[in-house]
């Protein structure tokens, strides 16, 4: 907390100088402006977590109106290209088909008589990420089948209450692009801060700063504020891209999203500050930022791998990481329109972790300065 000796003019002088540094440093500028553009292009266009146009080998032994309608549902989903030629299992074995569907001879008749029916779905599990995605499609298809086949049945078949809420099209971009904000904050804020403060140590200018009446907190606020703004600009770019280019819906409160960003940015800036004070060298600070910044926000935040499907140790470990909570909050606000009440846990966790990070960084910074 700024004490009574905190002077906003001195902090502003530090901030203004920092802006000059940024404007004259092509590397920082390129990183700050280029990274969001690169990430959005990369995850928006190149990497698609959706699996589409899979070939589905079918053995339709019924060949009745209901079985044909079931196949229609599969092909109309856009995920599958249905093909009835050849032995389905052999095609899956040969890698010519991603999955096979078997329909029993009495499928249509049983359905008409009001019996519950089933079809067998065989999946190539050797590519388990692909298999997981296909598995994810099944409940939706099943539900669609229940609804549409009901016309042919006097009593409706047992319907599965599975629906894809919030993202009915299962569009992976809707899920991915809001999460990019976490990567941008987690990497940029930590790395830029770590480098800028480490640079002052490395070239000895920290000593000169401290020989003036400027207070340590004024140095920190002045040095970090411009990078906070820079990172927020990157997040704003991602927001614009998500809305205008990819048409991701934004169901929640913008103010709440901004609050989540600010909390996460504070935690990230504090982490960067801590790294720079501990290393005091730009090179080491940069490497440490990559490891402690990029990896958690990329791999352990739920950005790529869902937290729920992690081994128990990592599932609990992610609770210590601000990016995990930010990711939860960001997606909740974007897609579900969740408010502070629904997101109480992520917001509380984010606030607590930010405060903890900041306290640690300030303590380390101050004890390192004072004899």
């Amino acid at each position, binding site marked *: 907390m700024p004490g009574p000796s905190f002077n906003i003019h001195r902090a502003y*002088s530090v901030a203004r*100088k920092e802006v000059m540094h940024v404007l004259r440093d092509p590397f920082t500028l390129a990183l700050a402006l280029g990274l969001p553009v690169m990430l959005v292009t990369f995850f928006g266009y190149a990497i698609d977590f959706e699996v589409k146009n899979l070939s589905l080998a079918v053995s339709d032994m019924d060949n009745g109106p209901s079985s044909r309608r079931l196949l229609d549902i599969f092909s109309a989903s856009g995920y599958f290209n249905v093909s009835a030629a050849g032995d389905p299992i052999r095609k899956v074995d040969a890698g010519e088909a991603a999955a096979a569907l078997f329909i029993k001879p009495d499928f249509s008749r049983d359905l008409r008589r009001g019996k519950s029916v089933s079809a067998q779905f065989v999946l190539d599990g050797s590519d388990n990420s692909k298999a997981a995605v296909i598995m994810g499609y099944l409940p939706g298809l099943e539900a669609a089948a229940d609804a549409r086949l009901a016309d042919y049945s006097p009593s409706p078949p047992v319907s599965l209450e599975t629906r894809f809420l919030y993202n009915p099209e299962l569009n992976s971009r809707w899920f991915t692009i809001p999460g990019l904000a976490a990567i941008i904050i987690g990497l940029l804020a930590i790395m830029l801060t770590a480098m800028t403060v480490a640079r002052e140590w490395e*070239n000895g200018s920290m*000593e000169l700063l401290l020989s*003036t009446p400027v207070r340590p907190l004024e140095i920190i606020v002045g040095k970090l504020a411009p990078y906070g703004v820079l990172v927020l600009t990157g997040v704003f770019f991602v927001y614009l891209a998500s809305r205008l280019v990819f048409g991701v819906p934004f169901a929640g409160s913008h103010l709440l999203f901004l609050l989540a960003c600010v909390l996460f940015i504070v935690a990230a800036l504090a982490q960067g500050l801590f790294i720079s004070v501990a290393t005091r060298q730009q090179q080491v600070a940069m490497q440490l930022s990559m490891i402690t910044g990029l990896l958690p926000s990329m791999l352990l935040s739920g950005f790529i791998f869902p937290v729920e499907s992690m081994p128990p140790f990592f599932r609990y470990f992610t609770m210590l990481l601000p990016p995990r909570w930010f990711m939860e909050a960001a997606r909740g606000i974007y897609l579900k329109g969740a408010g502070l009440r629904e997101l109480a846990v992520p917001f509380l966790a984010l606030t607590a972790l930010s405060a903890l990070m900041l306290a640690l960084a300030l303590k380390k910074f101050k004890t390192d300065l004072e004899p």
Partner: protein
Amino acid sequence: MNPSCALEVNGLSIKFGDFTAVDDVSFCVRKGEIFGFLGANGAGKTTTIRMLCGLLVPTSGTATVGGLGFGDGGKGIKRIVGYMSQKFTLYNDLTVGENLDFAAGLRKLDPAYAKKRRKELFALTGFDRPLSTMVRALPGGIKQELALSAAMLHDPEIIFLDEPTSGVAPAARARFWDLIRKVTALGKTVIVTTHYMDEAEQCGRIALMRTGRLIALGSPEELKASAFPGPMAELDFNGPPPEGFISGLRKARGLLELSPHGMRWHAAFSGGTEMDSALAGLPAGASRALIKPSLEDVFIRLVEGKER
């Protein structure tokens, strides 16, 4: 406190854990004086200066700088002194104007006052390049002069310069020392550390430090007189000295110091009679000449001599 002292230190010690960087040091720097710190690396010069700038708090002893103590952790002292550090001077990627504006901002100087000071200091240092010049483009000597201007922007009475001329060309070094003299002519007190003996000769008084202790203090002349009360001879053997002569001379009564200087040797004695008897056996072809001891001789005798 002595009113003629710009700063005064009594029984000052600074410890880092078990290591004593500065050990029981006392001195007074007079107003308007050029006060030099001379010593090897790690002798405690920079630590002493950092403390006097308010960057370190003394472990024990008292220090008053410009009438202020360390009751507030050095904050008051930081306001009234100017400091130019050894390693860093100015930001290379900022312009001259931006660097000076930053220095003014850190000290909350009124913009009009900062501009007036800038003009005065540019006149003093003879700086005539545009404010938009990038510091990176300035020659080393000019950069140091500009750094001194930045350190003096708030018009401090006491200015600390930690090895201000290291890495600067000899001609620029001489120019910088002219500037230091101009600054003291304005009534300012300058405390400077240096490795160069020729620079130390230009100080009003010198504090000689070794392993955290103050081992001698005085004007260059006083230091020479106290280190070498008797005469000093320069011996020239026109080649390597005859075998055994140097080791014999080392045992001579009244010899204070014997050290090689290039091809020649400097021998200092406690008195004229001692010198004559010790050098009576000087081999043929060798010559001797009475010389005045240099500060380097003093340094060797007082600092390195004790380390042997």
